[in-house]
Every structure is written in structure tokens, then in C-alpha cells.
């Protein structure tokens, strides 16, 4: 899950009353929704101009419009600080969309595709961690930076890196660099994965599974899947969610490793550690899926829940663009990015082969 969060000074958040904290969310949240709606509006405008007025207008999905508009705004102007608290709510909208999309999965599908995803994730984890560690050594990256890159690329992008930062006592510069690398690769995936999927004539399920396994950050994985189609987007979320559930185990593994070398604090209560790192929103996703399977909702109500999840994703997609600062990503140094790129290319190819092999005859 993507939580590119910079902790505010504790005093500043604790001393402010709740109503003021909530009030502070309004400008950034309004910007997220504004850009998201503008993306959807631009798609509708394009459709109108092409079909009614016969004016040439790019045929681009609302998902990409929201990201492009967000990127344009976020990189053209330096957003004032008053937008920051609200912009951070993109994480809430993303998780809300994911929980609601659970209505689109019957429990049987969830167990079938989720089980398949878990097997593929386990293989992907071993390969990802091994390759990243090897590349880190070859390019002489700092060991903890290598650990962060390995965690970020194998599991859940930025959230995993943030979770690992405290567990392995890494330096903030390493955290920042690792996050930059993961965000850069996520941005590249937005444009390369759909093109590869179309070139290979991949089905919605195969593509969604591949995206969920190969794209690191949950927001980028969701968007990259949605760019290919609704079903691909849902499957990408499912696969990515299965991958995210491993976050605690991998971070715990690294925490124990660095603690054994005397460079991080020992983890006293491992079960508690696993629970703390577990992304709880997954429980909501499963709960909604169980309700849908039990016949709690009618067909039209399920349709409404599906549409609601799409509305929730709109500001999240806008947030992907708004929070990506291209100039800053470039300034983070070429070696971590290169290690990330090489590792991700390898993983994209391996996961593609895994998905094509696993889904042959099972899913289209």
C-alpha cells in the first residue's frame, strides 16, 4: 500500500483540536476530487467531441486523464503547504475503493484467484529479494538501502519501505532514495505495462494478475490494471492485496537479520509485530466479499457498490499524479534507480512467464 507520508511534528498534530485537523483536510481533498472529476469530465468531453462534433480528440481513459492532469498540476506549480494534509487522504480513497471492490468478487473467485496469487507471490518474493540483494552488491549500494529496495520491490512499494524504516533503523536518506526508485518504476509501469499487455494480446485476468504481481506500489498497480480494463483492474487489486499480506513477514525477516548484526533493535513480540504490519483494510475487502457471496445485496446494489468503488478511486488516481514530482525523482541519483530498473525488468519478465504458465487453461 502506498503511504508516502512525512510525519508532521507530533506537537503540531497533537495540540490542534480535531475539528481543525479535519478542516485542514478540505483544500487538498477538494483538489484530489477536482482533478479526479476533471479527468472523468475530460474523457466525457472527448467522447462528445469525437462522436457528435467529429473533432479529433485523444481517446484516453479517465484514469490516465486524472493522472496526467495531476502530474501537470503537481509539477507545474509548487503546491502550497495548506494542500498537504488533504492530499494525504488519497490513501484513504484508495483503500476505500479497494474495500468496496470486494463486492465484485464472490468468495469462490477470491479463494481461487487469491490462492493462485498467493502461490505466485511466494515465488515472486524469493526471486525479487534474491535479485535485488545481488544487484545491490554488484552496484555497491549501501546494504540498508539495498534491503529497502528489496522490500519495496518484493512487497508493497512505499508502505513496506516506510514500515521497514523503523524496523531496520535505516537512514532517512536511504528511505527517501528507495521510495524515489519505487515511485519512478511505478510511473514507468503506467505506460509500459498496458502497451506490453496489448502487444501480447493478454486477457483481462492474465494481465491483471501480472500487474498485481509486478507493479510495486498499490496505487500504481491499481491504475496500471485499470488502464487495461475494469476486470484487469479488479484482478490487479486482488493480486496486489495478496502480495501486501506478506508485508509483515518480509519486514520481520529483515528486522531480525539486522538485529542479529547489532544494527537494529530486537523484535520482542513477533506475533504482535506481524499484526501491526498487516494491512487491515484487506479484512474489509474480504468482509464485503463475504456479504456479496452470502446474497446480502441484490444485483443492482452490487452494481452500485462497484460504481461507488470507481468514484472512490477517482481522487486516488488524481493523487498518483499530484504526488509524483518528476524533477525530484530524477535528482535522487542514478544507481538506486538503475538497480531498481534492472531488478524490475527481471521481475516483470519472470512474473509474466509465471502468470502465462499458471493461467494457461485456468483463466484467460
Amino acid at each position, binding site marked *: 500500500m502506498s*503511504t*508516502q*507520508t*512525512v*510525519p*508532521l511534528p507530533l506537537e503540531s*498534530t497533537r495540540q490542534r483540536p480535531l475539528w481543525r*485537523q479535519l478542516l485542514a483536510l478540505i483544500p487538498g481533498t477538494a483538489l484530489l476530487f477536482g482533478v479526479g472529476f476533471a479527468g472523468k469530465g475530460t474523457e466525457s468531453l472527448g467522447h462528445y467531441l469525437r462522436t457528435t462534433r467529429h473533432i479529433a480528440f485523444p481517446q484516453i481513459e479517465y484514469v490516465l486523464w486524472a493522472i496526467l492532469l495531476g502530474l501537470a498540476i*503537481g509539477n507545474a506549480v509548487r*503546491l502550497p503547504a495548506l*494542500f*498537504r*494534509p488533504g*492530499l*494525504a*487522504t488519497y*490513501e*484513504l480513497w484508495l*483503500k*476505500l475503493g*479497494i*474495500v*468496496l471492490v470486494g*463486492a465484485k468478487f464472490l468468495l469462490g473467485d477470491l479463494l481461487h484467484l487469491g490462492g493462485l496469487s498467493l502461490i505466485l507471490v511466494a515465488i515472486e518474493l524469493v526471486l525479487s529479494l534474491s535479485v535485488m540483494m545481488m544487484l545491490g552488491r554488484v552496484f555497491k549500494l549501501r546494504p540498508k538501502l539495498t534491503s529497502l529496495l528489496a522490500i519495496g520491490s518484493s512487497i508493497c512499494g*512505499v508502505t513496506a519501505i516506510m514500515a521497514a524504516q523503523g524496523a531496520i533503523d535505516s537512514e*532517512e*536518506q536511504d528511505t*527517501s532514495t528507495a*521510495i*524515489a526508485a519505487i*515511485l519512478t518504476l511505478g510511473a514507468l509501469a503506467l505506460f509500459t505495462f498496458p502497451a506490453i499487455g496489448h502487444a501480447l494480446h493478454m486477457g483481462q485476468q492474465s494481465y491483471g494478475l501480472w500487474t498485481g504481481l509486478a507493479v510495486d506500489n498499490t496505487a500504481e498497480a491499481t491504475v496500471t490494471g485499470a488502464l487495461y480494463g475494469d476486470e484487469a483492474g479488479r484482478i490487479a487489486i486482488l493480486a496486489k492485496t495478496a502480495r501486501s499480506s506478506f508485508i509483515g513477514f518480509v519486514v520481520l525477516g529483515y528486522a531480525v537479520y539486522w538485529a542479529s548484526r547489532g544494527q537494529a533493535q530486537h523484535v520482542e513480540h513477533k506475533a504482535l509485530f506481524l499484526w501491526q504490519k498487516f*494491512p*487491515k*483494510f484487506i*479484512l*474489509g475487502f474480504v*468482509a*464485503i466479499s463475504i*456479504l456479496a457471496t452470502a446474497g*446480502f*445485496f441484490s444485483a*443492482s*446494489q452490487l452494481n*452500485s*457498490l462497484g*460504481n*461507488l468503488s*470507481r*468514484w472512490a478511486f477517482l481522487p486516488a488516481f488524481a493523487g498518483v499524479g*499530484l*504526488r*509524483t*514530482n518528476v524533477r*525530484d*525523482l530524477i*535528482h*535522487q541519483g542514478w544507481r538506486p534507480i538503475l538497480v531498481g530498473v534492472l531488478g524490475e525488468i527481471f521481475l516483470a519478465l519472470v512474473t509474466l512467464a509465471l502468470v502465462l504458465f499458471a493461467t494457461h487453461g485456468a483463466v484467460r
Partner: protein
Amino acid sequence: MDSRSPVRQSAKLAFNADAAAIVIALALAALIRLNVIPHIGW
């Protein structure tokens, strides 16, 4: 945090996003189930 960090434009949420997402989703699902919200289009 590095002054040129790619994460500088965000702040930490003052609430638990996971719990909030679950509560809002279940509340909306209940409103849809009870037909308080009859239909949501796209």
C-alpha cells in the same frame, strides 16, 4: 526528510486510513442495502 524528497508534498494522516476505509465502506454498503441510497451510477 531530504529536502528534495519525492514525498515532501504529503503529510501523515491524523487518523487510521485502514479503519476509516472499512467503516466508511460498511456504512455506505448498509445505506445501499437499506435503499437509503437507491442507486449509484457511473
